[in-house]
C-alpha cells in the first residue's frame, strides 16, 4: 500500500463524541512507561519492562461566545470540564477513509488556558491526560 501524507486538518479529535469548536491545532503525545531493574543474575545488563502508558493531548482553538452546536464543545463546556477534571472517551482519527488509523481511549481534562491580546481573536489551549491504555485500530 502506498503511503500518502496526512493533511493536518484531517486529524480530528472527539471527546465524548463531541469536537472542540474552532480547533486550530492539536497534539497527541505519549508512550510506554519503562521500569528499570537489575539484579545479579542479569550479569550487569539493566532490564527494562513496559509497565503502562502515559500520554497527553493538547488542543488549541479560537474562543467563541454563544451556544455550541450539538456535537461541539464550546469554551464554556471546556472550562466546566477542566474545573471538574471531567473524563470522557476520546477518538483520535487520522483520516476518514476506511483503513485510516484511529486511536481510542479515555482522557481527563487537566486544564484550560485562555489567551487574549489587544489585536487578535482570543484563543485557548486545553490540556488533557490520557488515562487509559489507548487502543489502536482503523477507521
Amino acid at each position, binding site marked *: 500500500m502506498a503511503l500518502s501524507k496526512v493533511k493536518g486538518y484531517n486529524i480530528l479529535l472527539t471527546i465524548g463524541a463531541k469536537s472542540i469548536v474552532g480547533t486550530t491545532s492539536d497534539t497527541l503525545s505519549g508512550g510506554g512507561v519503562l521500569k528499570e531493574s537489575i539484579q545479579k543474575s542479569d550479569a550487569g545488563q539493566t532490564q527494562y519492562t513496559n509497565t503502562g502508558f502515559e500520554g497527553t493531548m493538547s488542543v488549541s482553538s*479560537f474562543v467563541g461566545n454563544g451556544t455550541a452546536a450539538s456535537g461541539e464543545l464550546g469554551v464554556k463546556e471546556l472550562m466546566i470540564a477542566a474545573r471538574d477534571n471531567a473524563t470522557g472517551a476520546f477518538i483520535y482519527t487520522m483520516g476518514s477513509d476506511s483503513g485510516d488509523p484511529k486511536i481510542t481511549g479515555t482522557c481527563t481534562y487537566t486544564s484550560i488556558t485562555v489567551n487574549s491580546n489587544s489585536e487578535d481573536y482570543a484563543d485557548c489551549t486545553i490540556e488533557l491526560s490520557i488515562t487509559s491504555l489507548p487502543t489502536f485500530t482503523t477507521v
Partner: protein
Amino acid sequence: MILEALNSAISGVCNTYPMVGDIEATMPFAVYNVMQNVLRDKSGIVGYQYDVSISVVDPDIDTCMTKSSGIKVAIDALEDTTVQDTTFDIVHFISEAQRYDAVAFNYINDMEFSITTQNI
C-alpha cells in the same frame, strides 16, 4: 471586498487610489495597499487578517498629517461594521512614519493598520 470598503472610508477624507502602477493625482491624496492572511481552524476559513498600508501625500506637512488623522478616524470607525459586504471585526492602527520625497517635493505619511474581517 475590503478594497472597496477601504476606498469608501478613505475617499471621505481625500482622494484615494489603490497602490497599483503610476498615479497622477491631485494632492492631497492617499494610496493604500493590503496583504491578506487567512485565518483557519480545522473546519476551514474562519476569517481574514489584513496588513493594511496607507500613505498620505501632500507638499504641506500639516495638510499631510491632518488628512492622516482623518483617515485614522475613518478606518477605526470600520470596526464592528459591514461596509461593501465586508464585515469588520477588529481594526487596529499600528504605526505611522513621516518622510520627505526630495524628488517630488512631497511629504509622505506612511501608516500601518491591522484589520481582521469575517469575510473578504
